[in-house]
């Protein structure tokens, strides 16, 4: 079993490298992180927090848009494309189990995203830490950001693969991936903001709203990172970070649930594909 997953994994990782996904993702994430670091350094001198913490806060907000996009782009075609080309029929005719194919692909693409995050954020983090005065809090904030960004990437790789397995057609998978990104990353927040405006202070604002926020993996990621930083200058939905009715770890649990759910649904769906 492990050798079969390993085979799928190796093949998929090789693809990600040959398709230049890793390099592209690293470059994009690295450039954005660097830009935010420069911006943070510019305003950081006046505040009481260090540049690394400041950059971690702004990068957490930006990563919510970028990392899901990169992960979805990497994964949405992985199964549907192989169904259309006919190469999945060959794979499914071998003794490999369907869920092993799904998990192998998932692991490889997650590793690709994580490597990109590690290189990009790691390098920029080191540069900031070396060039500016950095405390322990800043380093922890940065490490938390890198770890949870990897988790966020994994979830959206899982969502992308699930969408790919559900649609089985590249064009539909692309549309669905764009839809998922818009819904989870953009529209969900807008809708929540509208709801809280309409509902005002009350039960909804204190007891329902926070749960709705962490029900979305992108928001859960941002909320966790901001809630763990005391001095974070925040606004909008993120203001919630300071008045959570549950410990920030609950947001991590929500991420875990998303991860398990997408893998379970995706694997189950892969079993039904007629290649």
């Amino acid at each position, binding site marked *: 079993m492990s*050798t*079969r997953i*390993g*085979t*799928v994994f*190796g*093949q998929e990782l*090789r*693809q990600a490298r*040959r*398709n230049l996904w890793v390099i592209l993702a690293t470059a994009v994430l690295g450039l954005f992180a660097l830009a935010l670091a420069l911006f943070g350094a510019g305003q950081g001198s006046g505040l009481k927090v260090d540049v690394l913490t400041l950059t971690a806060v702004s990068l957490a907000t930006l990563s919510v848009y970028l990392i899901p996009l990169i992960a979805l782009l990497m994964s949405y075609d992985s199964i549907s494309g192989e169904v259309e*080309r*006919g*190469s999945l*029929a*060959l*794979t*499914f*005719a*071998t*003794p*490999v*189990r369907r869920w092993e194919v799904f998990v192998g692909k998932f692991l490889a693409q997650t590793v690709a995203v994580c490597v990109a995050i590690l290189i990009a954020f790691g390098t920029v983090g080191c540069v900031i830490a070396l060039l500016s005065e950095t405390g322990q809090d800043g380093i922890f904030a940065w490490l938390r950001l890198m770890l949870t960004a990897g988790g966020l990437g994994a979830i959206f790789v899982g969502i992308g693969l699930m969408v790919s397995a559900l649609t089985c057609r590249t064009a539909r998978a692309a549309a669905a991936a764009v839809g998922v990104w818009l819904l989870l990353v953009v529209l969900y927040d807008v809708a929540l903001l509208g709801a809280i405006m309409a509902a005002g202070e009350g039960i909804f604002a204190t007891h329902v709203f926070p749960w709705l926020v962490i029900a979305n993996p992108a928001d859960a990621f941002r909320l966790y990172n901001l809630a763990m930083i005391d001095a974070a200058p925040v606004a909008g939905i993120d203001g919630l970070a300071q008045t959570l009715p549950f410990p920030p770890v609950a947001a991590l649990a929500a991420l875990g649930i998303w991860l398990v759910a997408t893998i379970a649904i995706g694997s189950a769906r892969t079993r039904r594909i*007629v*290649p």
Partner: protein
Amino acid sequence: MTETLAIKALCLSFGGQKVLDDVSLSVQPGERLALLGHNGAGKSTLFKTVLGFLRPCSGTVAVAGHAPGSDPAREAVNYLPEVVSFQRNLSGREVLSYFSGLRGTPKAEVSDLLARVGLLEAADRAVGAYSKGMRQRLGLAQALIGTPRLLLLDEPTSGLDPVSRHEFYEVIADAAARGSAVLLSSHGLEEVQDKTDRIAILARGRLTAEGTLAELAHRAGLPTTIRISARPGAADALHGEFGGRRINGCRLDLDCAQGAKVDLLARLGRHHDKLRDIDIAPPGLTDIYRHFSRTGPTENQT
């Protein structure tokens, strides 16, 4: 129980449309069975059912005694699809290593397989730069990984030049000699006649004939055509005497049952002064094929 593949009374439909209807087939170890049939007859569908991709609505399929799609069945069967497509940016060797890894066979086999299908030189080039025939060869190499008990080859020789085609059948014969049962589909009647052991003909989802080519020819009982060229002015007299079909002013075609050939020729001999030439055309492969492809639908329409 010794059959590698046993299909009994298999029916399958796509949304109410019957695509396979009461198909029964079996293939023994070391035997090569050619599946013939018009476009849309259901050949590829049959393969996909044997692989467990499609669920039959009735009937049974057993691959080495196991249900299609089950773990032991997938271990026993290797497949070459109709249209082979691999990831374009991988080399031939990487593609084979991948499938070898999925089947859990030793990697050392890969070079040997590449040599067997004549791809050793191109092994480290990207598959995207392969010609159609080279991709087909790679597909065949992939299907030979791990000495399969059942080989399913869907139109393995489509798009190959005659020499490659010949080499393909040699590789297939070699695999059969090692004990693989081979089920292959084809549109080439000539190529399967002496390269396979038995032939099955599928017409609109029904199996209309099965056996060796000689048996099929016998069962079809098709007439031999005798083509006569008459001397000028003698055609009408011959037509009056023997009947048959007038082709033009001096030509006449006579249909004649297998056993009546000698008699007819003897009778013709008595009119040798009216004859310029005689041609004898026994029923060809195409006639036999057409005969069995036609019998299906007429039964079906009731």
